[in-house]
């Protein structure tokens, strides 16, 4: 077990550094290929055919703040890098964890129930699978435009779905690390699986902590990539999500590609196509 912990530190720190390097190179290519010039100087940004609604924007904002806080306090709990912060960081972690879980259920409710339910925007389809190679080629500068069949591309859809699923796993493993809540021992609720596989509760909590730590790194790395792509691919939408700008809208039905409905036409979508 000690070796596992040290290996995880080493692997994820290295991966994180590599991700930063890779996306720094990606940013350089954005400049070299003129994508940054077309976007930030000429203002050629993707357009949206549906308004970004207030509730998802608020939930997203709240989620961002909480995830930053959770990553910071969680990393402090593992690597206490300043004196006297353990108790405060733990309580901050617990509080933000509750907000994130409430947030997650609120977002799922919004996606599945109500007038503006948008679960279809996140559902991968066969058309998404067909254009997936094109999306990848666009991001590695092997293709000038991004195939566009839906509100989100296939990579976004997969990442958002996996993110939501991992939030459930993260919440479960996090609760299994809590021993008592208001004087009640809650570990049996979350470590019941240790009995059938023949390891003790303490070892089960240790393995839960390892999973919790791995997912924490996955969140950090995915969030860094997500933030980078949000800014470089659609800065106006990024500003609207945080309340200090407005995304580009085109309600005429075409928003940069053929006026047919989403999913019917596989065409280019990106800054180049509107040039």
């Amino acid at each position, binding site marked *: 077990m000690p070796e596992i*912990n040290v290996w995880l530190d080493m692997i994820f720190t290295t991966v994180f550094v590599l991700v930063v390097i890779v996306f720094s190179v990606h940013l350089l290519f954005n400049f070299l290929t003129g994508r940054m010039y077309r976007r930030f100087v000429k203002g050629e940004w993707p357009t949206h055919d549906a308004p970004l609604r207030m509730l998802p924007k608020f939930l997203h904002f709240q989620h961002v703040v909480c995830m930053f806080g959770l990553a910071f306090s969680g990393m402090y709990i593992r690597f*206490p890098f300043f004196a006297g912060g353990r108790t405060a960081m733990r309580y901050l972690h617990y509080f933000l964890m509750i907000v994130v879980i409430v947030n997650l259920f609120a977002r799922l409710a919004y996606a599945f129930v109500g007038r503006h339910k948008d679960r279809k925007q996140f559902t991968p389809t066969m058309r998404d699978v067909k254009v997936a190679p094109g999306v990848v080629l666009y991001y590695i500068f092997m293709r000038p435009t991004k195939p566009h069949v839906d509100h989100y591309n296939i990579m976004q859809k997969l990442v958002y779905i996996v993110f939501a699923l991992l939030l459930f796993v993260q919440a479960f493993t996090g609760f299994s690390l809590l021993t008592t809540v208001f004087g009640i021992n809650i570990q049996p609720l979350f470590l019941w699986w*240790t009995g059938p596989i023949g390891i*003790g509760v*303490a*070892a089960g909590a*240790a393995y839960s902590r390892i999973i919790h730590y791995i997912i924490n790194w996955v969140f950090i790395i995915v969030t860094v990539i997500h933030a980078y792509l949000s800014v470089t691919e659609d800065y106006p939408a990024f500003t609207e999500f945080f309340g200090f700008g407005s995304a580009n809208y085109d309600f005429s039905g075409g928003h940069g590609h053929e006026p047919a409905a989403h999913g019917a036409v596989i065409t280019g979508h990106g800054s180049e196509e509107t040039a």
Partner: protein
Amino acid sequence: MRHGESSARRGALVVLVVFWLSLLGTASSVWAQSPYQATFTLGIGGRSGCLVCHSDQNMARLTAGRNISYYINEEVLNSSVHKDISCLACHTDFTYGTPHRAKSNWKKVASEACKNCHKNAYQRYISSAHGSRAPEAKRPTCGGCHGSHAIGSQLATQTAASLLYGQSSAATAFHLSGQKMCGRCHQAATDSYSDYYHGAAYKNGAPDAPACWDCHGSHKIYGVRSKNPSVAEMDLVEACGQCHAGVTKDFLSYTPMIHGSERIRSENLLWRSVRPVTDWLAGTKELLMSVARSLFP
């Protein structure tokens, strides 16, 4: 005639020398007894008599080139758990004279004095590695770990704790004092105590991270190679079980991290592979900083 005069002079000189020598002898014997001939008359039932002199902040004596203070802070003493105990309850070898010239083996006296009230703790201590196996000169006494005049002092520990860790509780301050207390003799062990959730947290003031004695025991402490160890393979389940419920052998595989995290990290293959890069980055950073310092002094 000349011979007679010479003998008389020599006799007078001898008388004179004997006179001066006797005068010097008398003076030195007087010097040895003075300046205090008086019997000790201050009250020693409480501590007011002692504090007549010892409350003076300038009270010190130069011994072997060191200026040793004999000042007692009454405010600290009043906040100690021993505030109602007279000085003589601990200073049992008091000489009833001033200055107190008799050499005091205060370490031994302190242990013997504590025993009078704390019998159980003393019994456990004398059978432990600290009480019986440690070399006489290095043997820790009660005061070595628990302190003396400021023992359990809210004021002293709170001040120290707030300075060290930003903690306000005396109990927390005592809990966090292990690194300094035990590190005086066991520096390698306290230095290596740096794993994620125990040592690193403890050294950064986590009140719930275990202190040295939470695992190794306190008064009845044994060496790790002792036949009756507190922390060894046979007792790890019990030691870790104080905080972790349901401890099994699987869980104990973590224990090498507790005093070996740095070693395990340094032996990690990936760490050894990336180490030249991190060293290079550190060197580059240092170079850039020195350039920046020279440009913007």
